[in-house]
């Protein structure tokens, strides 16, 4: 069972709610994925609109935990205010903390991220920081009070998968007791399985499901891949070898010549 900030979750998938072809497909994909946590955002509401309310009623009806994000924030100040507004609106102290540092790569600004994490943790938030696999940054986030770390696999929405598995392996080894979630850049179920085989506790993704030709089927495929990778890791994976090792016993083999 996955435990994040004291909350037990049966699914190791965290799923985004953006970019689906329709609200109905989003809802069906969330159900098909079996996820217990979905991410949402806060955006400007037009007067007399109420569309944000309709969207959120759909999410609430699913009975999943809501993880508000600070997507699009480029400074610690913006991210902290967005988190506070999200807590007031969603009545949760969970926040997926994003502070974007680069327009092209959507890479986190880790300096502002640590600054915002310190302020929010001190204010009682349970912070899920979107970060890189940098170990020093990870230490600073833990010192700030974060109880979860979410390193990226590759740039958001890029579908490139784990571009630097060595760094993710290193992070797992350095923080054996911290819940680690690979967030961003996964494109295929095999990418999610790979992250889980490395010993990660969960994965967070959005575009890979929402942008698939059939998001509902893809949600099921990711759920299966995550379970397979997690079970495989627990079962103990073989290390690769340079040479062949016959699987069928050689002793007792008939000699015909």
């Amino acid at each position, binding site marked *: 069972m996955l435990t994040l900030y004291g909350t037990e979750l049966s699914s190791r998938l965290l799923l*985004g709610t953006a970019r689906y072809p329709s609200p109905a497909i989003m809802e069906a994909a969330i159900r098909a994925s079996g996820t217990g946590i979905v991410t949402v*955002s806060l955006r*400007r509401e037009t007067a007399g609109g109420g569309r944000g309310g309709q969207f959120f009623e759909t999410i609430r009806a699913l009975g999943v935990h809501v993880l508000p994000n600070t997507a699009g924030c480029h400074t610690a100040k913006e991210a902290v205010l967005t988190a506070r*507004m999200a807590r*007031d*609106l969603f009545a949760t102290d969970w926040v997926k903390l994003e502070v974007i540092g680069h327009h092209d790569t959507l890479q986190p600004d880790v300096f502002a991220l640590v600054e915002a994490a310190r302020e929010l943790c001190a204010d009682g938030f349970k912070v899920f920081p979107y970060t890189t696999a940098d170990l020093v940054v990870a230490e600073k986030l833990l010192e700030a009070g974060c109880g979860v770390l979410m390193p990226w696999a590759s740039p958001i929405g890029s579908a490139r998968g784990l571009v630097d598995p060595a760094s993710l392996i290193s992070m797992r080894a350095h923080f054996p007791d911290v819940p680690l979630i690979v967030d961003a850049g996964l494109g295929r179920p095999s990418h999610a399985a790979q992250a889980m085989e490395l010993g990660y506790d969960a994965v967070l993704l959005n575009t890979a499901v929402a942008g698939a030709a059939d998001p509902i089927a893809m949600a099921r495929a990711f759920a299966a891949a995550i379970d397979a990778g997690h079970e495989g890791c627990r079962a103990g994976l073989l290390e690769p070898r340079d040479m062949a090792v016959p699987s069928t016993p050689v002793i007792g083999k008939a000699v015909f010549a």
Partner: protein
Amino acid sequence: MKLIINGEEQQIEAGTLAALLAALDYEGDWLATAVNGDLVPRAERAQTALNDGDRIEILAPKQGG
């Protein structure tokens, strides 16, 4: 008075933030508000007086990753 609401300048009379939301037909429970860069919690909107030139953000839940 002049208010900057979600980035757009408007001339509107509203004594409090709650009165402004009502005047602009913002409906429902799913809103979050800030004035001049500070959160105004739902429970404090009726007591939050507005001044000329205030910058107001009115946000709602949206899809996100």
